[in-house]
């Protein structure tokens, strides 16, 4: 019998892609993912899966409740949790971009740019690196509305296809970074379950080839 392991997976669209990936990597053997249960056990592999809101995954892993987790790099950068970032998984790939009306000047030098985002930390770090003073407005969703209504000059948001931007007459002005789903591990549990974690890690690496 394998040593028991707990893996935190994101709910929503990324979650489905993650499960497909784990099936491809032969880590999930039998799992009823259609139920609404938040905790499902794969008896055969002795792995417990927790289905968690993407922004909470790193917390479960940092605190060691889950040994491993799969989460977007955007969330990791925003939250700065103390976890190991073992492997980018090549799924959920998208960019974090500055978006706004096409003619917006991104570097009005000394003038403060007003930026709306659900990623205040990534936003601050990026604009600091290009020496542009900004005021950040934290929003939880429908960020595209902010420049339309004059709440902000631009937004910093995750862009997958760009269709929402287009539908709202906005465009990508600059790419901040590319992000993708990443396998993370609890620092404590990594020490205690090393063999098992490495075994899973190599299965995932194989699936990536």
């Amino acid at each position, binding site marked *: 019998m394998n040593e028991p392991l707990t893996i935190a997976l994101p709910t929503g669209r990324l979650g489905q892609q993650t499960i497909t990936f784990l099936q491809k990597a032969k880590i999930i053997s039998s799992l009823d993912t259609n139920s609404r249960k938040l905790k499902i056990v794969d008896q055969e592999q002795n792995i417990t899966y927790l289905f968690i809101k993407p922004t909470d995954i790193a917390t479960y892993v*940092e*605190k*060691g409740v889950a040994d491993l987790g799969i989460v977007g790099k955007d969330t990791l950068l925003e939250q700065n949790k*103390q*976890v*190991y*970032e*073992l*492997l*980018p998984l090549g799924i959920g790939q998208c960019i974090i971009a500055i978006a706004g009306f096409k003619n917006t000047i991104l570097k009005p030098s000394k003038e403060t740019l007003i930026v709306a985002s659900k990623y205040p930390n990534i936003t601050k770090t990026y604009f600091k690196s290009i020496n542009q003073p900004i005021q950040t407005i934290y929003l939880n969703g429908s960020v595209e509305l902010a420049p339309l209504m004059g709440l902000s000059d631009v937004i910093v948001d995750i862009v997958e296809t760009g269709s929402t931007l287009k539908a709202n007459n906005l465009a990508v002005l600059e790419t901040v970074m590319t992000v993708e789903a990443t396998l993370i*591990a*609890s*620092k*404590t*549990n*990594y*020490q*205690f379950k*090393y063999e098992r974690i490495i075994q899973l890690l190599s299965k995932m690496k194989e699936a990536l080839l």
Partner: protein
Amino acid sequence: MDFTNIIEEMRYIKKRNQFIKELELFIELRGFTKVDVDFFEPYDKFVEQNKRIKRESMVKIIDPKGRISILSPDITTNIIEQVVYKWVDDAAVKLFYDAYTFRQTEGNIEEKRQFGIEQLGYQGYTAEIDVLSTVISLLKEYNIDYKIRLGSGAFINSLLKELDWDKDTINQIKNALQAKNEQALSKIIDQQPLKNGSSLIVRNLLKFEGTMEDVLTKLASYTLSSDLQVSLNSLEDIIKKLNNPSRLWVDLSLIPEFDYYNGLVLEGYTKSLSTPLFLGGRYDKLTAQYGKNINAFGISFDFQALIKEVTSNE
């Protein structure tokens, strides 16, 4: 810990005080003496010695003359300051402390109680063996399940120095190693125009973990400089003498929080805790910065966590 009932709270306090007494006696019986520690450190000096601790995380105090001090974010520096000026040749001391460290977090001052054991002036690896054996027998005494992750400050410092890259890049490498982020590590190395044998070792550094034998096997195909070889040999010697193979875990990518560690570095983990229960290492380099070359090794426990671990185990 929070209690709504004073009887329960007093019962807990009694249990906690009992443990602290037992612990102090346990340590004293092994020849260590308890010392007092100052609350303050001069800001400039501390920043100079510890470049990787963020300045904004230090709790600053300004006196009427405009001199800036900080509330100790780390006890070791504090102890060295006290010891160095009174040091005499051939001295060898074993000491321990129970003190608070302070960090500024967003809107809060975080205080952390630390219990530390230090040995100064001992030749060879006596201090490592002595301190770690004391810690291991303490953990056994209280039935605490643990794993100790061991690395070498000397190895990592020499290796990064051999790269001869700028400080920013080195810090990025350290951050990637700390997060075990292989992809980020390769990316940083790929961007460097000048590479050498050491950059190849750095690129693979995350693989060098496991038992000491595992690590040596994995390293066998690489060419090591004499500095690297010496630091590896000393790590091997210490581990042989510690004689607890299943609990010890070698990880050459371990980056100590403090830059002054120049020999064995370690982190102790226990299952119930998401952060290390204890940390430590050899820090002769720090004493040298204060003007005396003293052999020094010590570890410190997250004391609140240790107390919780022990009182909940009983």
